[in-house]
């Protein structure tokens, strides 16, 4: 599903360059549930942004679902993002003035889907996350767990092959976090590839595979390269 080779991502602030991802290599199989771990500032979110086509990269290769995304125009990138990728954020990122239904419907609007089909899809996905009764509630009227369910529903409504979750349980209590993890596990069981950034080892343990990012490099515990040989860049 994801293949990055020698990928390089640099942030520039004036004359200062910071290499957020350096010679970054990763492969994520279709249907896999991958947990990404690492200290703050190691490049986890940058990786998710690049993987989700929300950010550009300077060098290397990125193949998403068999398509080389280098050099794609914005319209194509947006369409790929809309059809193939779903995002779940730590802070939910719901539109505060749209109700649950409208929030979930947004990706389908950008896809230009007819209203009747949109309605059926939204109702189906809301029933999947157990929020049919809250369809006309505003985000502010929901608990944190419910808001994250809405965010997951919104990510799933377009039936993406890849779900990118950036600390999806970071703002939730333990009980709710467990429920969200169960939901993500179920979604993965349905065939959706999930890449989840988390700080919590017990949540990462529920993934098929764990991968560490340190100083902009992916450190796969299964890989032969020892952690000690990774050059510190920052």
């Amino acid at each position: 599903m994801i293949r990055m080779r020698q990928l390089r991502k640099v942030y520039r602030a004036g004359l200062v360059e910071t290499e957020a991802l350096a010679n970054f290599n990763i492969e994520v199989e279709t249907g896999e549930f991958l947990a990404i771990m690492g200290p703050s500032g190691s490049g986890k979110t940058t990786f998710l942004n690049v993987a989700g086509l929300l950010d550009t990269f300077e060098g290397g290769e990125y193949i998403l679902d068999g398509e080389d995304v280098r050099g794609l125009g914005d319209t194509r990138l947006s369409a790929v993002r809309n059809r193939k990728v779903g995002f779940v954020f730590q802070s939910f990122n719901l539109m505060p003035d749209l109700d649950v239904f409208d929030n979930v419907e947004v990706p389908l609007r950008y896809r230009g889907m007819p209203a009747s089909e949109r309605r059926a899809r939204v109702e189906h996905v809301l029933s999947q996350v157990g929020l049919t009764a809250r369809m006309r509630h505003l985000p502010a009227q929901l608990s944190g767990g419910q808001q994250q369910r809405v965010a997951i529903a919104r990510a799933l409504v377009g039936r993406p092959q890849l779900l990118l979750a950036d600390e999806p349980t970071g703002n939730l209590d333990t009980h709710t976090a467990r429920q969200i993890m169960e939901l993500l596990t179920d979604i993965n069981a349905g065939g959706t590839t999930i890449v989840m950034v988390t700080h919590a080892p017990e949540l990462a343990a529920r993934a098929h595979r764990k991968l560490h990012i340190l100083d902009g490099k992916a450190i796969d515990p299964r890989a032969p390269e020892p952690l000690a040989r990774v050059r510190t860049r920052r």
Partner: protein
Amino acid sequence: MILAFHLRVAWRSLSRTPWFSLAMVGSMAVGAAVWIIARTTVVAQGALSLPGRPVFHAGLDRVGPDLSEGDLRNVQAFTSALVSWTDAEALLARAPGAATMTWASRAVIAAHGHPAAALETRACSRAFFALFGFRFSQGGPWSAAADRPGAVQPGAPDSEADALPPVVLDARTAGRLLGASAVGRTVSVGGRDFRVVGVLEPYQRMKIYDLKFIVQTRPDEVYLPVHEAAGLGLWPEIVVAGAPHGGSMADLMASDDHWVHVWLELPDAAARTTYQRAVASWISTLPERRPAIATLRLRSADHWQRENFRTFSGYQLFYLFGTLLFAACVLNLIRLLLAKFSSRAHLVGVHRALGASKRSVFLQHLIEAELVGLGAGVLGLGLSLLGFSVINQLILDRPVVFLLDLEGALVLLGAATAAGLVAGVYPAWRTSNLVPAVFLRQG
């Protein structure tokens, strides 16, 4: 479909910060209202008084050994403008195209259910309305046949209504006397029944077809064919007396008194030359008169206006100020939109993550700016109405009552929406071009 969605998102974005949105709309509305008021004052001044029509005023310069220098100056002042009935007929007879004579008078008008009142009346030909750019809200001008003497013979035509001579009313008079539908109705003018054939829209140009003090003190309310007006004995507001006569309308028409304006259309230089030659030839055949007619004096509408309607340069300054203020409001709106779009950049990042392209984001923000412009246009209409009433009270020496007519309202709405568009382009472009990941980091 996606446009409706953008519109909805834009509307909600504006509704989320009502006071800020009101400040944006309000500041633009003030700029737009001041601009349209200033523009109206300049347009009414007359640079645009007769767009596209080569209209000329025809007068006759006179000389005579029996006039003192002072008398000559006084007479010249009016004779350069006014001619006698017989001279007017001669000048019109040689006109190659559209032409009219006209004078101002007062007549007693009555309609069913309304008390009779003396109203400002203008005698003119059918061509008068086209020459001076009048527009009709109902009906139209009378027929060319009605301009001929004795065109209407009571009892002769098919119906009673057709037997009546025609009259045109201004919108306010028509509304007051006859309500919303005036055409075809009957009014009494000077004791005789007339059939209303047309109702004019408010005239928002300088009325240059008469002397300045006439048009500034009396708004024309009723328009009659010249022969009908003469038949009713509608005495002109101003008469430069020549030799003594009996004092009846028939005597006036036969006399050498000057009281009629002549206007005609001369499309090009060749037509002017031909007309001048024809009039010169006519002058050469005239018997000797005191004072004698020397030459034809043709003045273009612009020339006539410059000569007789000296305008206050303050209007131009006001227009400049209004334009600069409007431009400043547009710049201010750009600044406010940049601030607003930046403050909700995080949500833009979310939209981008969900599949919105740069073009979608650009369009969505442009629509938001456009809503501000449209709102400013609507609010500006209300503010300008208020502004016009203030300015009409402040400026007493004005060529017309400044009004927001339909054209002005459309110009205001168009300018405000265009300004919203212009102001929105840069902030929308800037917002759409930031990297989504940068937006999301702000969340």
